[in-house]
């Protein structure tokens, strides 16, 4: 490789990396936990999905109670189901029957728990699973009042994902020539800088395919509008809805409101049962009722082929409820369209939902490997610039920046464990509870470690505190949730059991890492291999 190209890859890799590193760490860390979003929700609410998933969804009861509450005539009702969770989102549009229906202008959007039969608003039903899932695409930043035509947090997350994609490409090119030889280089007992470099290179190269998949699918999932907007303007006369319909994101049911009430509202449960009998293993994704109680009433059922059988496959069935006839039908087991194949591919790769716990655990580990690559990258950046020929003011700035970034990143582990404990002990939930607990404790940890100005201390202490708090998570669930590990296991509440076991293992692993660090540090100080400096002492991460 010529020297010029090599140095350009080097420089662009460094700059794109240092710009997005802290946010990227947040995305990776929260994203790794998000693989277990539904299990975390089950753990927090102590309502296991796996124990209750045999129960049929109570359509009749739900629709009857909604009809009493809202008067459903002339409305469209959407039920969005999610796999591995009893939580269903229900959306009710205003009624087209503005004369008979007194509440025609009202609309509703809420969360319905099929096991507890409770209705909650979105903010009330907001739990830790949802919080970490949303944090991994920076949704909380959407509340920043900047009007740029797109939610601020999503835009930042999209930009970070794009820079990450760029850093991955330049990073791979940078190591291309020595890809094989460097892969086997690991010199943990030589100079500090080579430790960071070796970690960064080895883990970066091992994790490359994984990280690339997540950068590439992530940027698509968060900002596909950046690509689609010009096309909507140029080819669709600005009609974005038509694009989403063409790309099979939405199903439109063509059935204008007739304003002729049906004598009796037909049995919806029967139609759904019929679809489920037809495709027994398919996952019911969405149920739409159009023009409720009108002669034009339609029932649309959208299903997905089970991911352990096939990666892509969407099916749907639409009934005309005035006659009970099927108008449109498409099996999820026929070969999917090109569009649906690509979309399913992107979605399942990113969510890791195609191989049960095994795939999720592998993805979690690779996500944490990504976190290590990011932190070691920050440290390389710092150590490479910590030289006598670099002006003092620049070195000061660099050290501060590294302290701030590392404090933000490494605090996330104890803060996440702490929030798990707090929600269990207090029983508090909802957005207004989780936000302050998580963000203020994160702020406190971060400020403290920035002021301590020691990367070594930040690393050691966050590991130790994280390990202790992780250990406390399953214990707290036993005491305050009345669900000890063995109880949830014997009860068949595998999702709740999994989260407790998961924290227990995390605790053991981080304890071992902590002990290793302490031991090596003592060893190094004795031998004076590692002179302890007052302000910018650095030590191993993990």
């Amino acid at each position, binding site marked *: 490789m010529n*020297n*010029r*190209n*090599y*140095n*350009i890859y*080097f*420089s*662009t890799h*460094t700059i794109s990396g240092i710009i997005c590193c802290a946010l990227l760490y947040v995305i990776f860390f929260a994203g790794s936990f998000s693989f277990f979003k539904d299990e975390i929700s089950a753990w927090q609410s102590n309502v296991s999905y796996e124990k209750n998933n045999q129960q049929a969804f109570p359509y009749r009861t739900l629709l009857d109670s909604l009809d009493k509450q809202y008067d459903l005539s002339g409305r469209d009702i959407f039920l969005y189901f999610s796999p591995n969770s009893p939580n269903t989102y229900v959306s009710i549009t205003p009624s087209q029957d503005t004369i008979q229906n007194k509440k025609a202008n009202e609309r509703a959007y809420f969360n319905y728990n099929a096991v507890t039969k409770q209705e909650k608003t979105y903010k009330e039903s907001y739990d830790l699973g949802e919080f970490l899932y949303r944090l991994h695409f920076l949704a909380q930043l959407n509340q920043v009042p900047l009007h740029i035509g797109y939610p601020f947090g999503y835009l930042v997350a999209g930009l970070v994902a*794009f820079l990450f*994609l*760029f850093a991955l*490409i*330049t990073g791979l090119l940078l190591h291309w020539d020595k890809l094989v030889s460097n892969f086997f280089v690991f010199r943990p007992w030589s100079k500090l800088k080579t430790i960071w470099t070796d970690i960064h290179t080895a883990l970066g190269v091992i994790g490359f395919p994984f990280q690339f998949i997540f950068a*590439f699918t992530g*940027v*698509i999932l968060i900002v*596909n509008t950046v*690509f*689609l907007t*010009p*096309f909507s303007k*140029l*080819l669709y006369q600005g009609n974005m809805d038509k*694009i989403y319909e*063409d*790309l099979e994101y939405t199903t439109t049911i063509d059935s204008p409101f007739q304003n002729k009430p049906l004598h009796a509202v037909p049995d919806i449960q029967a139609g759904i049962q019929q679809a489920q009998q037809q495709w027994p293993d398919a996952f019911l994704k969405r149920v739409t009722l159009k023009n409720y109680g009108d002669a034009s009433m339609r029932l649309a059922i959208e299903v997905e082929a089970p991911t352990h059988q096939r990666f892509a496959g969407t099916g749907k069935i639409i009934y005309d409820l005035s006659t009970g006839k099927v108008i449109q039908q498409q099996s999820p087991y026929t070969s999917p369209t*090109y*569009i649906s194949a*690509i*979309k399913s591919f*992107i979605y399942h790769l990113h969510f890791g939902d195609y191989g049960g716990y095994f795939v999720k655990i592998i993805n979690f580990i690779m996500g944490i490997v990504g976190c290590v690559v990011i932190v070691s990258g920050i440290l390389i950046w710092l150590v*490479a*610039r910590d030289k006598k020929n670099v002006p003092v003011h620049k070195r000061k700035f660099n050290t501060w920046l590294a302290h701030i970034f590392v404090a933000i990143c490494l605090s996330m582990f104890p803060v996440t464990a702490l929030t798990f404990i707090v929600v269990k002990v207090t029983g508090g939930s909802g957005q207004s509870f989780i936000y302050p607990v998580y963000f203020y404790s994160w702020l406190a940890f971060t400020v403290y470690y920035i002021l301590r100005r020691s990367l070594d201390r930040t690393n050691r202490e966050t590991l130790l505190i994280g390990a202790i708090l992780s250990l406390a998570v399953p214990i707290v669930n036993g005491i305050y949730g009345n669900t000890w590990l063995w109880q949830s296991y014997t009860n068949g509440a595998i999702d709740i059991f999994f989260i407790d076991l998961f924290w227990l293992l995390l605790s053991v692993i981080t304890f071992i890492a902590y002990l290793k660090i302490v031991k090596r540090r003592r060893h190094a100080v004795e031998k004076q291999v590692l002179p302890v400096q007052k302000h910018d002492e650095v030590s191993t991460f993990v």
Partner: protein
Amino acid sequence: MPANKKYLTTSILQRWLKITAGFFGGYGVMISFFLMLSYFFEKKNVMITGVAIGYILWAVLLLFAFLARSGWKIWLIYLILITLFALPHLLNA
């Protein structure tokens, strides 16, 4: 060992030209490329392909701009490419 400055762009103007060419020019090239394809293939299939690989293409175009010797030249190249790719649309409109 930060990158050797000898090989990097030192002029601020040049650096900005390259960054803007890569980010905005690269985006334009990427979009116009798929726009052109949409005149030869099924429109919605081209769009979903673009959704899938467009960002990678854009990132590579961003890198090309940094590899270019001159910021003016890469802007010129990208503008020519955009015009070329947009031709089917401009002729049809």
